């Protein structure tokens, strides 16, 4: 299993053709206390860059974008009732959604963990 990152501060874990997507620890720290999460509907087809989910902290609303083309196969309903989990375990149980990928070649455009760390350090 490989983990990829975007410069929108999302992480993507890929197993077969299923990608699990969440936001990074850096992203949750920037957002602050998360109070609301809106998930995409299962079955929805998204293109890379489309708005997929919404995450709101006390201060502001942010979008979570589809990092790759695909179809939503599952949203993490736990986050709807416990949005603060995004702050507690952003890169663990607080994933946002799972995408069935239809263009795995797009993975080549994403960052690996080392690249992402360098990217965050440069901010």
């Amino acid at each position, binding site marked *: 299993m490989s983990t990829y990152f975007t410069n929108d501060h999302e992480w993507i874990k890929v197993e077969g053709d299923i990608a699990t997507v969440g936001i990074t620890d850096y992203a949750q720290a920037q957002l602050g206390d998360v109070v*609301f999460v809106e998930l995409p509907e299962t079955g929805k087809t998204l293109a890379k860059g489309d708005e997929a989910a919404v995450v709101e902290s*006390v201060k502001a609303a942010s979008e979570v974008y589809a990092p790759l083309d695909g179809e939503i196969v599952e949203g993490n309903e736990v986050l709807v009732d416990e949005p603060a989990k995004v702050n507690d375990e952003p890169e663990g149980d607080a994933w946002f959604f799972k995408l069935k990928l239809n263009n795995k070649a797009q993975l080549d455009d994403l960052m690996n963990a080392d690249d992402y760390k360098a990217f965050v350090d440069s901010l």
Partner: protein
Amino acid sequence: MAEQDQTLALTPLYDLHVELGARMVPFAGYSMPVQYKLGIMKEHQHTREAAGLFDVSHMGQAYLVGPDHATTAAALEALVPSNFKELKPGRQRYTVLLNDDGGILDDLMVTRPEGEENDGRLYIVVNAACKEQDFAYLRAKLPANIKLEELPERALLALQGPKAAEVMALHAPQASEMAFMAAQEMEFDGIKIHVSRSGYTGEDGYEISCQAGTAEAIAKALLADDRVEAIGLGARDSLRLEAGLCLYGHDITEKTTPVEGNITFCMQKRRREQGGFPGAALIQKQLADGPQIIRVGLKIEGRAPAREGAEIVLPKTDKVIGALTSGGFAPTMGAPIAMGYVPVAYGVEGTKLEVLVRGKALPAIVTAMPFVPQRYYRKPS
């Protein structure tokens, strides 16, 4: 902060904010702490449960100085709809600066200082974002015998919360005896300060005006107490929203009157009857006949925060009747709340409306404010 903008002003507590790990943001031309390490939610809760220390040194402090109280009060009354002639020494009052259309140019706190040597002086605190315009407006409108003396060398701190009085008493024992909206000079561990028992959170607490050079010592003495945490602008906003208090430039503006803004408590009887302030004819007509629109509180169903600018619609229609002027998640209530303007007919408590968030109509109910009960200090009788 690596990206400190050279054009931003710093308060006397800037170094302390950075030392405390604050996230600094530009606000009204200043670099200000939006939150510290605790984060907005915990800072908010801590203020409701114990005590929070806020740096509000960016706000504009000044004296109006005239020959005697009656003259200075009359000059101010020509620009605001509140009664200052009868304001007693050592008392503070909330008011609004009006334009000729009755619109609100800013909201401010006005104190009549104690002591004969202060006769003819009124101490004012205005919003940071408005202070330059306010001071220019006051200078242009005040008669020649009333001078505006700005106090840029003063810092302003707020200590707010149910433990504020206990903490303050350790450093400035006189403060615990003060009534709500009282103001006086005293010493804090030997440092000269001007204190008012007021604030912007709905809690008991104080605002402490001091010389810039003494602000850090006072802040550190307060923060050394386990009951006190540093609180940023983020929690300041959620605390005041729960308390139903207006944020100038959002909930009240130059396009809204005090009647529309639902803050007529700042207009005492004599002023309502006699007028004599900018826009008096319109405001008195609104008092008599009711305004067209009014600021209301809204509780939003569900968890999604509805924010400033979101449209208010009539249920099951797409008829837009107003917009939110503030809104967000209320940490004390664990639910989203908002303020906005609606036609008066829809301003009745319990009226069911909807708010549009990302194209979805969220049910909302008109709710009396404050959303969270205010807990201002009441002197034992």
